[in-house]
């Protein structure tokens, strides 16, 4: 009986003040649309940045006369270093096959295999690539600055400047995306809360009268919060519908025709739907409940 009454109250006030309710609904719709587009974009950007960073590694070239025993020893030494996630071994034969496949004639001319055995050392975190590099090349803190860690190593690749650039650029991209996400979230909350506040302000005299008749704060607040839930859920649902239509009409055909573009891993659509619905409903309901506090002080 109580819940039915509150529901009826909420519906009545939405009917009687349709314009403010519609404004709140439109605000939720627009912000949720922007969020719904923005979240996958941010994720795609972060994914791209991560995959670039994933390619950062240290290449260790062995002497051309290194034996299998040397390779095994160096492999263990490399694995023992801090911040090393894995070590990938490419034998000179494998390297020759790879390279000659790209430029067959040139390698035929050479006659013999000039390539050394190679280790690709992948750090646990791209940011640690320089530390790993200096450990291997002997300028790090651990080895006392005395040259390479093993005599059978010929050189350690020195692509410091490239690596540093990659790290800086991807860092910048990730941070920018994070800041934009936070700003957008704040803007959405403020926008929705403000619209609700305006529609409540229009009805503050009504709240005052309710208080004078002897209504408790919760008795007044609950219908407003139900109204917030309805408006928020309706706005978010509409936004989801628009997003879904766009996805089916525009994105899906694109994805199947343009398989060249590797689709970056983004949030699943169903998860996105749940996130948007929850966010729209919650912000709207809480916004109504909290904004009302001001007007309840009679």
């Amino acid at each position: 009986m109580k819940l039915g009454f509150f529901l009826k109250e909420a519906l009545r006030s939405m009917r009687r003040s349709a314009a403010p309710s519609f404004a709140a609904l439109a605000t939720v719709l627009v912000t949720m649309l922007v969020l719904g587009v923005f979240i996958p974009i941010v994720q795609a950007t972060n994914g791209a940045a991560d995959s670039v960073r994933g390619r950062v590694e240290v290449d260790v070239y062995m002497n051309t006369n290194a034996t299998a025993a040397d390779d095994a020893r160096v492999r263990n030494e490399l694995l023992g270093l801090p911040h090393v996630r894995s070590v990938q071994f490419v034998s000179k034969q494998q390297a020759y096959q790879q390279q000659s496949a790209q430029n067959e004639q040139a390698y035929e001319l050479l006659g013999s295999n000039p390539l050394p055995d190679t280790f690709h050392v992948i750090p646990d975190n791209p940011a640690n690539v320089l530390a790993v590099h200096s450990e291997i090349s002997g300028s790090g803190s651990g080895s006392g600055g005395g040259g390479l860690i093993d005599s059978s190593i010929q050189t350690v690749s020195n692509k410091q400047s490239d690596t540093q650039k990659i790290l800086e650029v991807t860092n910048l991209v990730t941070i920018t995306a994070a800041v934009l996400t936070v700003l957008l979230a704040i803007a959405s909350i403020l926008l929705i809360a403000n619209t609700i506040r305006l529609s409540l302000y229009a009805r503050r005299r009504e709240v005052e009268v309710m208080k004078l008749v002897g209504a408790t704060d919760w008795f007044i607040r609950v219908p407003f919060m139900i109204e917030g839930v309805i408006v928020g859920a309706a706005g978010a649902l509409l936004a989801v519908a628009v997003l879904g239509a766009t996805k089916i009409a525009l994105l899906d055909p694109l994805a199947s025709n343009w398989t060249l573009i590797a689709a970056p891993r983004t949030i699943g659509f169903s998860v996105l739907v749940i996130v948007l619905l929850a966010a729209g409903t919650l912000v709207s309901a809480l916004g109504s409940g909290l904004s009302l506090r001001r007007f309840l002080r009679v």
Partner: protein
Amino acid sequence: MGLGRLAQPMARTESQHRTRRRRESAAPALPAAREARPVAAVPGAAPVIDFRGVSKRYPSGDIGLDQVTFSIDRGEFVFLVGSTGSGKSTVMRLLIKELDPTGGTLRVAGHDLGQIKRNRIAYYRRNIGVVFQDFKLLPSRTVYDNVAYALQVTGGTRREIRDKVPDILRLTGLSLKLHNYPDQLSGGEQQRVSIARAFVNHPPLLLADEPTGNLDPETSVDIMRLLYRINRTGTTVLVATHDQAMVDKMRRRVLELSEGRIVRDEATGLYTRDETTREFARRMRQPPTRPDGV
């Protein structure tokens, strides 16, 4: 905790009113005959309203009330007069605990308003009916729903609402306006809705702040007649007004405020006379040149 004790005596009077009302509706005779006998003021019992040296100083520095002391007994009909700014509205707002006094003690039905906690104010207010100059109706509700809201607030059941609301609307003469919205009503009708809302719970105390301030003299008489009828069911009525002519004709107890102090407290001779509302209305409509005409 103060409220639990406060609610008890009030609940008792309310049930008395209810039996009285039922008897009235059982006999569909003339309005005058249907009325219950007036409850005489009981001077010995705890006063319904008791101001003891109450002061109210606003944060702006203005003095609302200055050491005001008076008391009103159960069943009384009292006018509170004075020019604007004399403190009438301050008295009303203190009584519904919209404001708190800055000095003195204020008791309603024997219980100190200062002891009522903030979250209990809503329950306290249900024991008081309030009528305002600007009616303060809910614009998004029909007449019926406006009155029903006062019952819904107290957790009244649907059955209770169906029983009581048409009853009180008949008493206030609004039976034909049930489904109108406030903006479709005249001022007098709106004020009657607000009185119906204030009285539907049968509160032991009814406050009216300038109830006729926005109304023409003829309508004002109707409103006063309605308040008098409510008073005759045993409800204590306190009316703030600056309508001097009305006060003179009514001949009830008059409290006059000036600059926050009580400057007059007198009851005129006819005060205790048992007078039906019909006689009352006839007397009220007579020209003021014959004050002793009944």
